[in-house]
């Protein structure tokens, strides 16, 4: 009995998730099917029971989007691309503007997505100042995206200073990789 309840609950949750996603997707194909079936549940004495309507139908009609996958997968795909900085500088480089515009366009397409911008620095500066520099870099990236029309509340920032380098090595190639604003999708 317990098992039955749980599986019912699960399928109902699945149903809601699907409905929820369906309505948030870019092209909300009208899928009245589940809504029509819902009232049918009511007449029965127990609120939850009743055989779950096939949850596959609405899924099939929903378009596949970039954010269907898990957060890990979304982050692996790298839809939001990192930006890079000059030494001891937090200004958005001219060659990074296109990258940020591309990011903004993607984020506008998925208005439920929230991101974190991590400010990173190369190993050459002092640890303490770099913590502050990384904070500035993250803030500059955020401000740029906000100017492009993204809501502030969707972007959180953090500095890791020079604590979490992406590339090892003590040469300009590694350093240029490590002076970065790194994007992480934290909610979808």
């Amino acid at each position, binding site marked *: 009995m317990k098992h039955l309840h749980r599986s019912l609950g699960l399928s109902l949750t699945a149903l809601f998730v699907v409905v929820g996603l369906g309505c948030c997707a870019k092209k909300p194909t009208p899928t009245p099917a589940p809504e029509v079936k819902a009232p049918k549940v009511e007449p029965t004495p127990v609120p939850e029971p009743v055989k779950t309507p096939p949850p596959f139908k609405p899924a099939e009609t929903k378009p596949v989007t970039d954010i269907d996958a898990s957060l890990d997968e979304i982050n692996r795909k790298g839809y939001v691309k990192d930006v890079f900085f000059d030494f001891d500088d937090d200004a958005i480089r001219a060659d990074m503007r296109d990258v940020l515009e591309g990011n903004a366009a993607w984020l506008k397409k998925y208005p439920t997505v929230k991101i974190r911008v991590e400010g990173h620095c190369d190993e050459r500066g002092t*640890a*303490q100042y770099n913590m*502050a520099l990384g904070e500035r870099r993250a*803030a500059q990236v955020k401000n740029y995206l906000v100017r492009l029309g993204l809501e502030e509340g969707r972007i959180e920032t953090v500095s890791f200073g020079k604590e979490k380098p992406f590339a090892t090595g003590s040469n300009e190639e590694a350093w240029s990789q490590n002076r970065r604003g790194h994007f992480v999708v934290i909610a979808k």
Partner: protein
Amino acid sequence: MKVPKTARFMRLWGISALALLFWPVVSAAAGAPAAVGAPAAVGAQQGRPETPPAPTPAASAGPAEVSAVITQEGGRRIPLAIPPAIAPIDPVFQAQTADRFDKTLASDLGFLPNFILADSSLFPKGARPPATKEQGDAWSAAGAQFLVDTQIQPNGEQVTVTAQLYDVRTLKPVLSKRYQAGSKSIRVIAHYLANDIVRQFFGQPGPFMTSIVFTSDRDSRTPKDGRVVKEVYMMDFDGENQTRLTYQSSLSMAPDITRDGSKIFFQSFYSRAPGSIAPGIFSIGREGGQPKQVPLSTGLNASPSISPDGKSVVFAGSIKGNPEIFSVNLDGGNLKRLTESASIDSTPRWAPNGREIAFTSNRQGSPQIYLMDSEGANVRRVTMAGNWNDEAAFSPKGDKLAFSCRNEGDFQICVTDMASGRTFQISNGGGSHENPTWSPDGSRIAWQMRKNGSTQIVSANIDGSGLKTLTSLGNNYSPVWSKALD
């Protein structure tokens, strides 16, 4: 907390037992001239008994008058002979107690630039203590002007150490001491004796009972996702007794220790809520335990520095991503913004007088060190040379500032004399040298040195001589020396 905790407990127990059993020595120390600035002296004596009645010298105390002559030797290095302690010929006792005592005493006194230790291969036989002029001359010929003559007596679980400091010219003891403690505390007895000898010559103890707080990545697992864990550690001034304090499996940075040595503040990315990454300022007791977070509404929350009165913390915080210097009470109350600039302000450090704060800013281009009053007024630039200066550390008297300095290439450790503005570099050789901190007697500076891909904590005399590496496991960062001498 496994083994280190036990070791630490034993050690502390040893110290308190020593303090109780050797009241006269300890109280004499408390009555000695204050080591550093006024606030430091107050801190140094916290937790010590009130000045007791006249100290009764243990054993047959030598004539104290002689010390007046000796203190005039101040300027030059004092030649000292430290022959092994006379102890029972028992291999176990020799190995576990006598050898450790000898090694610790020689290492302590050899640590300071004030002494030259005579070569033990030249020591005369059978001349302890030097009773005749011939015997005294024999010690002089071996390069000694003073002789530390010690005996260790086991006494159940306790040991008694009797020590006399002889002037080999007058053949008289200028210092006579007796210490008793648990045999496991033999190193602590050696530190006490070393302190008493230094105090005899220079009026204040050496750094032998001080500690250094630092962070270490030695507990990082093989970084599967590049995650580096840094925990807060503490060790004796000479690198012994390295003890882990935090178990947050997070990134902990930039520790600072209160003047009384009871609490350590640090920045950490630890969070109970999964998914959220927000650095905070935490405190932890010197025995470890559960870290306590200072409630803050700011971001960044880096580089905490405790005010000399121990009531507030300055730190680099941010509002809307702009790093500024803030001050906050330990309970999160009275948050005050001290700097107002559109540029980066970071790395605040309290001056020991409690009236000034050093910090780093790039408001004039490159990162340079500035001073301001404790309320944020009267900002003036301190460092004029080099293109990157950061991580300022005031000397215990506040008359000098050590910092990480760079002109070309790697960072070095520089020291600026505040009155004259003269700056000299104390580190040399390859590698990157960062995060300096002063011993509370002002005799040494410790910092982190990166060489061949490994970052370790070293310490040296303030002229750069006597460099010693104190750590070797993993990488070790951000040393901060405790602020009281005993």
